[in-house]
């Protein structure tokens, strides 16, 4: 069975990470920003799995599981914050957050 090379897997992870980063820098919507953070975390997990597959070891997949748990925790708190943000400010534009006091 022919296999993929390590570099192509890592380059895919780098491209996905960079796309998520561009989205985080340009989009002003809070939910899209959270989705972009998800893209970046997923790309980081992909890099872990690719590196683990290089040596045929399970450590990369274990690290992906930890990234997964962290992403789930982050998105739960982030979406709760988005709901509160929307309730108090009426919009989802992250630029409005500079009006919050305290």
């Amino acid at each position, binding site marked *: *069975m022919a296999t993929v090379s390590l570099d192509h897997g890592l380059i895919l992870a780098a491209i996905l990470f960079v796309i998520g980063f561009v*989205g985080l820098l340009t989009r002003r919507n809070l939910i899209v920003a959270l*989705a972009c953070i998800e893209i970046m975390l997923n790309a980081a997990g992909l890099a872990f799995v690719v590196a683990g597959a290089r040596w045929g070891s399970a450590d990369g997949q274990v690290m992906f599981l930890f990234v997964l748990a962290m992403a789930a925790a982050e998105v739960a708190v982030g979406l709760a914050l988005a709901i509160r943000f929307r309730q108090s400010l009426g919009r989802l534009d992250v630029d409005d957050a500079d009006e919050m006091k305290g």
Partner: protein
Amino acid sequence: MTTLFYIAAAVAIIATVLVITRSNLVHALLYLVVSLFAVAVVFYTLGAPFVAALEVIVYAGAIMMLFVFAVMLLNVSADAPLRVPRSAWIGPLVLIAVLLAELIYGIGLTNHALHAGEVGPRQVSEALFGPYVLGVELASMLLLAALIGARHIASQPAVPEAGGPTDEGGEA
């Protein structure tokens, strides 16, 4: 398997680009689901079927369902479409293109082949509950903290309109 990897990689990249360019929030989230499915196929071709299944169940299932529920709760479709001015893309795109070129150069085209066999759920579980068991405990604490924190944040009553500085004391 190799062609499967490249096709899934192309789908993942295109879907992710569409995520950050759509102005309709629901469309962007659905493209994100497509991207996560494509990454799951990539995991499968890399010999990681357990992680591929988890990607579909947890990422594309649970996390994206959270996103869609938040969008429905917030009634975002009543908002104006989320257009970004074209000029806002230029600066980040140029800088990130340089960064990506550096990354690809750093990774290099040395053609290390990946390990041929697949690493199944059994090996992953043995590693997870062997040397990494402390990490599992930490992850469980993190998830519990996130659960309590999300419950606390989302259930606060709406902030009163202007001039109530004393009511904010309850928020630690």
